[in-house]
């Protein structure tokens, strides 16, 4: 029993890393552009397929192709910004959330249908030579390499983003824009460019998450909304303003799900996580790691 609990906790933490990674991208586009991109999970899905085909057609290892997938999704993010979100950011902030919700919901339909059309509805997983290898701790707790990559990449991405936002000129422009875009544009910041790049980075992060999902788990055209929902919950749980906090909240959500599957049964793991989320939301509306007074 103790073995089962620890094993489930470890698996939960590892999948939680990917929750955190998906949430990082969503938080970036939400925090900066004030748009709610429900199609973020679909970008994860497309990233997964990119990594899958780079591996199966060209033999590039998914851990090596990560930067490539990031670039591909970054470019897709730029394209989506020019085609759709450019028009959304013209509105005032309340209308932006509503319209982006609707437009990205249309995008969900389109991207899912395209994926079914091109890739078929089958489940796919990248099977590498090291897929079944695991680090075995104290004789019985297995930590699969392929899955731990998710947590590691999530942590690296969080630190990289924090560095970008806090230490670079571009990062200051991003933060200024997300605080108050009118003031930012008055001080000479090119708000449109900030929006475009922030959205593209958000798509790129979704791509990273996707390649790790297809490496450690499996992808199919319909996985998107599930990941978006998890990411939304993680963001509200963490509160905006801290990238590290988002990854921690993701890991926490995974951990809760893992433990719930042991204690309550795997059929209710999702339910338990959602209930915990609602309870946390009731008592700490600014999120677990959000600053006092900051609201999503």
């Amino acid at each position: 029993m103790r073995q089962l609990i620890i094993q489930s906790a470890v698996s939960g933490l590892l999948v939680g890393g990917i929750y955190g990674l998906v949430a990082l991208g969503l938080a970036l586009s939400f925090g900066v552009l004030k748009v709610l991109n429900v199609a973020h999970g679909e970008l994860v899905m497309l990233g997964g397929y990119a990594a899958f085909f780079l591996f199966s057609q060209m033999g590039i290892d998914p851990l090596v192709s990560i930067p490539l997938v990031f670039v591909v999704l970054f470019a897709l993010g730029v394209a989506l910004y020019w085609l759709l979100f450019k028009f959304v950011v013209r509105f005032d902030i309340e209308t932006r959330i509503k319209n982006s919700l609707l437009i990205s919901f249309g995008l969900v339909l389109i991207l899912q249908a395209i994926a079914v059309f091109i890739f078929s509805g089958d489940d796919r997983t990248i099977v590498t030579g090291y897929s079944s290898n695991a680090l075995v701790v104290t004789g019985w707790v297995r930590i699969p390499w392929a899955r731990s990559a998710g947590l590691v990449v999530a942590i690296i991405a969080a630190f990289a983003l924090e560095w970008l936002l806090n230490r670079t000129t571009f990062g200051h422009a991003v933060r200024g824009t997300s605080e108050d875009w009118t003031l930012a544009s008055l001080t000479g910041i090119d708000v449109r460019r900030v929006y475009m790049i922030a959205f593209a980075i958000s798509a790129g992060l979704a791509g990273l998450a996707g390649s790790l999902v297809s490496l450690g788990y499996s992808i199919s055209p319909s996985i998107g909304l599930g990941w978006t929902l998890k990411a939304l919950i993680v963001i509200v749980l963490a509160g905006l303003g801290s990238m590290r906090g988002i990854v921690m909240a993701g890991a926490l959500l995974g951990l809760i799900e893992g433990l719930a599957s042991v204690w309550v049964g795997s059929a209710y793991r999702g339910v338990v996580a959602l209930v915990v989320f609602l309870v946390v939301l009731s008592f700490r509306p600014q999120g677990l790691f959000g600053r006092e007074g900051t609201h999503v």
Partner: protein
Amino acid sequence: MSEQVPTDRRDGMFLMTLLPWRATAGIGRSTSGWQVMWWLLILAATIAFGLFSDNERFLTLAIQTYVLAALASSWNILGGFAGQVSLGHAAFFGLGALITRELWLGGRSLPVAVVVALLVTAVAAAVIGVPMLRFRGIYFSVGTLALAVAVFLTAGNLWPGISSLPAEALRAYEFHARYFSALGVVVVTVLFAAWLKRSKIGLGMMTVREDEEAASATGVNAFVYKMAAFVISAVLAALAGAVFGFFSASYYPQFPFSVVWTFDAITVVFVGGVGTIVGPLIGAVFFVTGRDLLSSTFPELQVIAFGVLFILVVLLLPGGFVEGGQRIYEVVSRQRRDSTTPTEAESEGEKQEEKERMDEGHE
């Protein structure tokens, strides 16, 4: 949002005239008898269609439209009137479908089953509303979404098998009974929404939507109005769900709880015109016929084409079809006005009256 108030007002006019206790109150003074005629004509056409058509495909499409229109109108009360964007509406739709169907197939009469379903939903909504309505904005949206997904998963765990009508019920399956119950539910929902919009409760809801802080500061009990919107909207959603439970020959009991219903309803409301009475009706007709036309013409690309069409509507008509129609109407009437006499003073008077009514709602 405040600049939309005159739009809201004119839209409500259409239906106001159908309500005898208001038609004489002088509020509907700018409503022409033609509008009443149009509404009665449409209603008569739908009734005639139900009486004389035996085309099962068209009857099914009509029933789908009515269920979606009723569900969208119910969401509109919470999301459009009170401004609380709930992403968990499917939970109440599912609850209505589940309870009605279980009781009905368990041998109770249909009306009893529906009444029980509505009462249970009302209590459930009131209980859930207490913690949920403390959340604001995006927190409320994500909170209700989380709740609906939890309910969806639980329903799937508790009722894993398909729920089918028994053989003798299937043999006696009558499309027209379904058609008229769905039509009845739409009419009830829309009339109720129209009445609510003109009532003091509805004004309170809109006051909360415009500015909750300002409303509270002037003595409006925001929580009470939000709770009223939440419960009313949940009960009407359950009513739509009850029709769906009655209509479906067989389905997974989990299906009506699916988040797809919420998204469809919200889509319909925004495409039609949020906060208006006719918007959800127009939106539902557009949504169901659009989906059906595309699936019969481009079976492979229908979803893609629908997604593109949907995005175009949202981008080009941010206020939905109602606002689009409004703009055309204004352009046309301005041209007509230019050729006759200016009536600026009249519209000023309307605004003044609107303001007075809003002030009334504050007390």
